[in-house]
């Protein structure tokens, strides 16, 4: 599998996701934000975490309009896989690839902590390695992860099964306590209509080794690699 990791000037978790992808067996190329094309044969585009352009206006707003995003949109339209993590999720929302927006956390603070996620479905290219309803242990690190969308959009996301992950407790129960940033319906990640684009706030790439906390994040990258190999 070939992954293209897009690097914006203020990206800062690209190294983390490169490491996770490499461990899962992917080839990786970094792509500078000013590029107009993706490398030939790209299976997966990754928008990594960070503060793409300082994120002073709205997170991901400037990056969502960067040159390289036209190529990413074309890739997604062809059915290609796109994964946006944290700032990457914000960029996907700002670029129109996913609906809704990430607003300031309910307590207005940046929060970094371990967090369980309930896997809503395991029949997508991103989650085959997990069980449906499984609670996976990952971490979050963001100041603006409060998922917000209008009623209609929410209804559509829920109705069409496009919610990928929800904040939950260790048993997969979706509780108010587990939803620390205040996201609507405890949404931690969503898919595009065709299930080929995933945006999520938590960082699976930071939990791929026992030494640094755990391995529950691996499944996501392994799912992607085996999906691409099968295709």
């Amino acid at each position: 599998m070939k992954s293209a990791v897009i690097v914006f000037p203020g990206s800062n978790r690209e190294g983390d996701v490169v490491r996770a992808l490499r461990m899962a067996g992917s080839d990786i190329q970094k792509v500078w934000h000013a590029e107009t094309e993706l490398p030939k044969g790209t299976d997966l585009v990754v928008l990594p975490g960070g503060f793409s352009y300082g994120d002073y206006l709205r997170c991901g707003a400037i990056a969502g309009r960067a040159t390289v995003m036209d190529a990413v949109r074309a890739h997604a339209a062809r059915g290609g896989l796109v994964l946006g993590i944290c700032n990457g999720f914000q960029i996907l929302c700002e670029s129109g690839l996913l609906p809704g927006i990430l607003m300031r956390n309910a307590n207005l603070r940046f929060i970094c902590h371990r967090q369980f996620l309930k896997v809503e479905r395991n029949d997508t290219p991103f989650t085959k390695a997990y069980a449906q309803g499984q609670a996976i242990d990952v971490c979050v690190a963001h100041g603006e992860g409060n998922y917000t969308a209008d009623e209609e959009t929410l209804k559509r996301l829920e109705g069409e099964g496009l919610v990928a992950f929800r904040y939950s407790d260790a048993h997969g129960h979706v509780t108010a306590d587990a939803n620390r940033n205040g996201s609507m319906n405890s949404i931690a990640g969503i898919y595009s209509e065709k299930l080929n684009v995933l945006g999520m706030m938590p960082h699976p790439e930071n939990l791929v080794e026992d030494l640094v906390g755990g391995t529950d994040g691996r499944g996501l990258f392994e799912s992607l690699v085996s999906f691409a190999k099968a295709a």
Partner: protein
Amino acid sequence: MIRNDVAITPELVKEHGLKPDEYDRFVQLIGRTPTLTELGIVSAMWNEHCSYKSSRIHLRGLPTKAPWVIQGPGENAGVIDIGDGLACIFKMESHNHPSFIEPYQGAATGVGGILRDVFTMGARPIASLNFLRFGEPDHPKTPHLVSGVVAGIGGYGNSFGVPTVGGSVGFHPRYNGNILVNAMAVGLARTDEIFYAKATGVGNPIVYLGSKTGRDGIHGATMASAEFDDASEEKRPTVQVGDPFAEKLLLEACLELMKSGAVIAIQDMGAAGLTSSAVEMGAKGNLGIELDLDKVPCREEGMTAYEMMLSESQERMLMVLKPGMEQQAEAIFHKWGLDFAVIGKTTDTLRFVIKHEGEVKADLPIKELGDEAPVYDRPWVESPRQPVIAPGSVKAPMTEAEALLKLVGSPDQCSKRWVWEQYDYLILGNTVQTPGGDAAIVRVEDGPKGLALTTDVTPRYCEADPFEGGKQAVAEAWRNITAVGGLPLAITDNLNFASPERPESMGQFVGCIKGIGEACGALDFPVVSGNVSLYNETNGQGILPTPAIGGVGLLDDVTVNASVAFKRNEDAIILIGA
């Protein structure tokens, strides 16, 4: 001919923080009355912060050498060899006063400054820590200061992309009017790719890199005295605002430029900005420096030479480049969207010459600005010994259970999770031990090595007995590192004290340094970098003597480490030590 359009009055000299005898010394040195720009330059070079005039003779006593020390105090940061061709570069620095005035920006720019010190030497920052002291929790200012400082540290580090892995928070009424915000940064470089401030070669280009220069941080009192546009109704704020995004760009651009082989010398523009960075580069290299301020990228219109030389605008660097490499360097900086300008050259005159708008605004002997700075052996008195209290004579004020509850519920002892949850401590994927333990551990690249990092001091011990307190602070850092399985290698220190002009607080300073030196010597744990912050007091009330120690240790195999948590039911609990 050097013109002087502003009369240098005793008041103006005083506003620049120079004592009359210091000013006389300067006049004698240059053989004439200085210009306003020159007065500004010398006030920056000879203040306590830059010249270490009250602390220098005492700091000389600290052990700074060991076989693994590559660079001790005197550069932007200390450097130690950690094997495999890798060096660990680290330093701690205070931003106490700015953080009291504007907690968010003060703390943020403190983090930015120390990160720059580390990457100026060619290192990529891999961890940061902080040491914080606030006044009483009930003091009306405390909540505002705490939330601003913590948010500022997080805001800068999180965006820059370095994990904040450790630190310390404490409260005491003696910090009511003077909080402490000390930040430590740790970076990694290859031992053969370390960069220094020393300029070499005559006629080499001096380039300015990073963000534009504004009127940030120019001293308030001098601001008022100089004739700026009276039209502006608001008093110009002197607060510096941090831009972590620009800093991240500066990091990447500097590292890329260093790789290209174009860099001869580099110095970040910290406090006293362009002045101290340029003087340092020249003086260290035995060279003169000539700057043409018309070339300096400015954010505001009509900036004077005085303002440019004293601006503390953040996220800026000064470099000496190999001749002929300017274009290549410029291309790298433009790729990262940063300013780049050749603003001067090295000379063989040993003079610091500043030109602006066709005039020479300053022409000073460069080495003397540093070497001839006043040095004081200030009077000090030994801190009075506290009586030893016989344990038997103390009556228990409460039961053990009550005491335990009170202790764990106290602001100093309670969990600091609410602080470090606002820091991204996981980014880079190498945090093996997170905040909340004795020392943090970060893996070095992909392993197998790891670094153990901690910041410590117990100020009330230093108040009770400076010598023992200084020793204890080093010992505690050493113990924290060994407790997680690391071999302690070296420390950085941040000596926060009250006014050196009061013999009692000078006595505390001297005592603590002696204690630190003694412990460092005994433990083979040298001091490789540090910072002195004096005059921490308000209305004659000094802070507790607070020499913060930042310790670094090495784990050869990072997978073999110990943590504070009890692991299993029925495990034996063993108490060791004297």
